[in-house]
């Protein structure tokens, strides 16, 4: 399962919040249960945001795969957000994970095949993998796919 993470997710994951779904996303990436991707345009921003977290930056460089978007898009009003969308479309990502779904940012439920989800609503379906298709058919009712994994129960 492929995902592109907004930089905010990495920042939130580094903080010891009581409720920290962003850290769970990074944990899934660490365990190899979620394929996280980045484009060459993103590491510089990650370096700036995670400058005080070298271990987390190393994790990103080590575990994230690099995709190479061939086109520059401007579908999202807030220009820097387009870099994430270009990457998501280039690799045909299942999810674009962000906390910024405000107007002018990632305000659509999906871009192409990539669904925009927040860490809080990316979760396992209750009745099996059949929900994957259902989820794609009903982008406005996200049911998510990856949480509730055995090691965490």
């Amino acid at each position, binding site marked *: 399962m492929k995902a592109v993470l*907004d*930089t*905010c997710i990495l*920042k*939130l*994951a*580094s*903080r*010891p*919040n*009581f*409720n*920290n*779904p962003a*850290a*769970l996303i*990074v*944990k899934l990436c*660490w*365990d190899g249960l979620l394929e996280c991707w980045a484009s060459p345009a993103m590491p*510089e*921003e990650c370096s*700036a*945001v995670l400058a*005080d*977290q070298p*271990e*987390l930056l*190393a*994790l990103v460089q080590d575990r994230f795969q690099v995709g190479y978007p061939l086109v520059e898009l401007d579908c999202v009003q807030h220009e*820097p957000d387009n870099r994430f969308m270009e990457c998501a479309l280039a690799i045909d990502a299942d999810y674009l994970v962000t*906390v*910024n779904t405000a107007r002018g940012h990632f305000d659509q439920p999906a871009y192409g095949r990539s669904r925009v989800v927040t*860490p*809080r*609503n*990316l*979760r396992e379906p209750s009745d099996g993998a059949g929900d994957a298709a259902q989820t794609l058919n009903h982008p406005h009712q996200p049911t*998510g796919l990856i*949480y*509730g994994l055995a*090691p*965490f*129960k």
Partner: protein
Amino acid sequence: MNATAIVGGKVVKFVLPPALAKAHQRNATRIMTDQEAVDFVETKRRRLALRRAKPYLESRS
């Protein structure tokens, strides 16, 4: 080190990877809301953009 996430009403407890455990230890009590994270990233983006534009801006002045 363990962490907790509430996802879709379910409480999920999990063990943090070493990199995140170190980050959590370093940040200790410095929690952050979603909006603060967004603002933080935006500030960094603005600084980055300004740094990139600096040679051009200097050549214009």
